[in-house]
């Protein structure tokens, strides 16, 4: 992970071994889910553009425990990890990606437009940057409903150049809204490197333009994410308004399933694989003396869970067009 010469906020205390193992299990659940999705997509069971967050799981895993019942999470098309972090059942997600009646949105959302309000997941968004102002609105609602809601919105490095994100950050800062802006900086926007699209790639520094705190953190370590995002949540809950957290990570796969990834720099992926969450957490557990069987068990359990969930989804009926016109209006 290139922190661009900046001090990386947060120290990887690592938490207790239990927490590290729990994190690894969660990372593996997301990883196994998405690897199964890839398999289903390549087999033609799932169709269309599907964006995986493989390699970026630590951010969602670190955030998960911070999100309270009253909070609201807004993600992008690369949002499977976040839906899972919010507790959406894998079978309902598989169902959605497979166009099944049992999908979390009955097939209406698909991979890129999932929504699960009952799980505090107010959805993915497939328009780059568009979720940021919507999240600001969720935070605004909290000012009047007595909930104390914090809204978390996540987007990529490339989204920082979109007008809506700028407006949302200024809006949240000016109105002092409890929003946590999480920029998952995976250094690529589709097939284009962020460093060619900005003069100063230290994106967290843009927070200063809005008079809000901003920091860059290691986005491959759930413990760091938990601590630093936790600080941002605390600021928000205490009435301190928004924060921008730039979480450095790497997308270990293509922008979408099928991406030939010809744009990769030599050695880029090899290096990224040495620093990815599974490695970070596995090494930490090994250093703490946790056995390989336990570590491997996290993967095994996750894969088994996802096989079952996928099978369940595949067995469900396709979304029924009979009701396809419903719910357009009240």
């Amino acid at each position, binding site marked *: 992970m290139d922190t661009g010469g900046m001090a990386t906020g947060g120290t990887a205390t690592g938490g207790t071994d239990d927490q590290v193992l729990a994190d690894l299990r969660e990372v593996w659940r997301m990883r196994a889910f998405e690897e199964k999705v890839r398999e289903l997509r390549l087999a033609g069971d799932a169709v269309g553009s599907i964006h995986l967050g493989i390699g970026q799981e630590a951010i969602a895993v670190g955030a998960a425990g911070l999100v309270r019942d009253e909070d*609201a999470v*807004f993600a992008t098309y690369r949002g499977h990890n976040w839906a899972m972090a919010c507790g959406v059942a894998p079978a309902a997600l598989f169902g959605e990606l497979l166009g099944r009646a049992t999908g979390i*949105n*009955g097939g*209406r*959302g698909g991979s890129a*437009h999932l*929504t699960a*309000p*009952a799980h505090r997941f*107010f*959805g993915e*968004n497939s*328009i780059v940057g*568009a979720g*940021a*102002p*919507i*999240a*600001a*609105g*969720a*935070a*605004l*609602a*909290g*000012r*009047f*409903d007595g909930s104390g*809601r914090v*809204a978390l919105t996540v987007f990529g490095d490339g989204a920082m150049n979109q*007008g*809506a994100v700028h*407006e*949302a950050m*200024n*809006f949240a800062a*000016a*109105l002092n809204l409890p929003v946590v802006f999480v920029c998952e900086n995976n250094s690529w926007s589709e097939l284009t490197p962020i460093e060619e699209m900005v003069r100063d790639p230290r994106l967290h520094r843009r927070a200063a333009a809005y008079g809000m705190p901003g920091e860059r953190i290691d986005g491959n370590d759930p413990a760091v994410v938990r601590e630093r995002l936790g600080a941002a949540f605390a600021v928000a809950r205490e009435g301190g308004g928004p924060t921008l957290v730039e979480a450095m990570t790497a997308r270990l796969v293509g922008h979408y399933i099928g991406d030939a990834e010809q744009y990769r720099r030599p050695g880029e992926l090899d290096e990224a694989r040495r620093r990815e969450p599974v490695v970070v957490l596995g090494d930490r557990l090994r250093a703490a003396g946790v056995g390989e069987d336990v570590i491997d068990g996290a993967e095994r359990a996750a894969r088994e869970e996802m096989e079952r969930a996928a099978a369940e989804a595949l067995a469900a009926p396709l979304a029924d067009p009979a009701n396809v016109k*419903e*719910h*357009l*209006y*009240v």
Partner: protein
Amino acid sequence: MSETAVREVEAGRSVRSLTYGEAVNAALRRCLSELPETLLYGEDVAKPGGVFGVTRGLRRDFGERVFDTPISESAILGSAVGAAMLGRRPIVEIMWVDFSLVAFDQIVNQLANVRYVSRGELAAPVVIRTQQGSAPGACAQHSQSLEAFFLHVPGLRVAMPWTAQDAYDVLVAAVHSDDPVLVIENRTLYTGKQDVMLDGPVQPLGGLRVRREGTDATVVTWGAITARALQAAEALAGRGVSVEVLELPWLNPLPTDEVLASVRRTGRLAVLHEANVTGGFGAEVVARVAGAGVALRRPPLRLGLPDSRVPAAPSLVAGLLPDAERIAAQIEDLTHEN
């Protein structure tokens, strides 16, 4: 709010002499009072009371639920979507409809999708108040009539009230509705007192107004240009031509049956709007009448801006937008058998 006499009409209702702008204010006041989940915000709407004074006094009386925002239409509209998802009922202002285009995504790709994609698990009861139209001296970026854009967005309700009474009723209905609604006002209508009955029951969305009954031709129209349709009808009455004028305060839902019934009776149809003709909503009205197989005695007429940008000089606009006399002449022509 003007301090004119208030007459008791029926229990709990009153008629007051208000301008269109004051009627909008009264509707907002009512909604802010009876629906605690309402919010009212936009550029200059709160402390200054709006650039047209329409929201005057609401910040004072409703406090923090009424607030000013940065010049950030994407943030205004996007935050309204988010607040509505989480149980608020935001009423936001886009000062001119032309400005909505800097944030059109939030309306089309976001607001309109909320209910549908979530199968009703989420709703987005947002009301967007805006105003549009040509007024003397206004530049090309402050003069457009863009209702057709919004009428091609399934999931979004659209109203364009013309009278002060409808400005009140439509807005109250819009705010109470769980559908997102765009209410398009018109700054040239804001002044001039009219009797407005307040505090009536919340009306359903939709409906149309028969502004004048007639037998020889049906004119379907909406917005400020309705006045010209009525002037033309009046002039034609003097020439022995009886024109029915249907004014549509609501365009979505569209009162198709009522339009068809009138055209069936008169056998002649003209649609008049201030928007450009090509791709304008007049085409939809004509297409619905044609599609329903209504037998017309003459081909239907579409009157509006003849596919142009809008120049600033009044003498130039006059060369584009049909006035009452030109409208009358064209309708008269329509009533001649060929």
